[in-house]
């Protein structure tokens, strides 16, 4: 049955209405979880606030495991969903650059939008930075066009790469995430004890 729009169950005209509704839910969850504050977000790298890890990895394993069940029940045809194409080297480099951006800027794109919504100036500057970064990237694109398109492996999944069925990855991610949740609970307590001046 699903996905609904690619299968024509819902007309393409509803696309943008649905986009806004999903966006509202997304923004609400991010803001309500505390992602509108850069100090909350950066805390994940310093051990004083693991909200990013908790929300992110809970979402990840719920979605992963959920997809398996959706496929089983027949709600979703996994062969019809969008698989992000893989460009090996550019993605490694992109991930590293984004890692720097995250630690230095304290936001990621989605969270900065919610930051702006409640009046955070640093979120606004981050978004302006995003804009300038992408603009600069476009202008300089001819310089690294070859690299940008290198290492293309197509729309491959972990199963395509390793031959291991998806449920094993879902299970592995779940076990690691759950272990991390329990581990970070203790780390956070310990770090916070030494950080009396911590305020959000």
């Amino acid at each position: 049955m699903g996905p609904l729009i690619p299968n024509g169950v819902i007309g393409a005209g509803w696309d943008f209405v649905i986009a806004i509704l999903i966006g509202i839910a997304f923004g609400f969850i991010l803001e309500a979880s505390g992602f509108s504050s850069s100090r909350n977000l950066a805390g994940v790298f310093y051990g004083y606030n693991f909200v990013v890890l908790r929300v992110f990895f809970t979402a990840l394993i719920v979605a992963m495991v959920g997809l398996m069940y959706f496929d089983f029940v027949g709600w979703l045809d996994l062969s019809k969903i969008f698989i992000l194409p893989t460009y090996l080297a550019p993605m490694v480099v992109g991930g590293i650059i984004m890692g720097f951006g995250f630690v230095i800027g304290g936001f990621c794109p989605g969270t900065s939008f919610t930051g702006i919504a409640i009046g955070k100036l640093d979120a606004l500057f981050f978004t302006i930075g995003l804009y300038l970064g992408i603009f600069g990237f476009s202008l300089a694109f001819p310089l690294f066009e070859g690299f940008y398109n290198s290492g293309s492996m197509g729309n491959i999944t972990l199963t395509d790469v390793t031959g291991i069925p998806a449920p094993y990855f879902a299970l592995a991610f779940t076990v690691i995430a759950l272990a991390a949740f329990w581990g970070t609970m203790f780390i956070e307590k310990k770090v916070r004890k030494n950080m009396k001046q911590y305020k959000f």
Partner: protein
Amino acid sequence: MSKDKIIDNQSKYINPYLGGVLLGLLILLTIYITGRGLGASGAIKSAVVSTSNTIAPSATQANAYMGQFVSDDHSPMYTWLVFESLGVLLGGLLSGLIFGRVGRFRTDHGPKITAKKRWLLALLGGALFGIGSQFGRGCTSGAALSGSATFAFGGVIVLFGIFGTGYVIAYFFRKLWI
């Protein structure tokens, strides 16, 4: 804004695991409806292309990167991710209003840096994130979260790229935050 009020806000955040489960279900719903996950940086890309296309159309269409996102039949802003990101802004505002976090303009920064320095760093970090998200074919929400959730190999690479790098370099930037 007094510190008391800000500390008070802390207790108003929802339980992170509840937030995570809701977000996970939202990803499932999004994939169920649209066949693809969430995203954010794509909207900024659309904004870049469309402003650039308004100011200098010929240069934009000639640009090897932006040119591929320009089409004759509709504005580059008329894409799924732009509407979704508009929703994110509205949703953030809604949550902020409900939990009482919408306030006058303010800046979060570590105790050892000034607000102005924080702005510069946010600008720099944003620029880096913008560049990185183009190479990575998506940002934290699009590539790392939605990509990994659909078991895409590239999504997992970006996920480990972002958080791996974050942990490796966090020590050198600790003065910004603690």
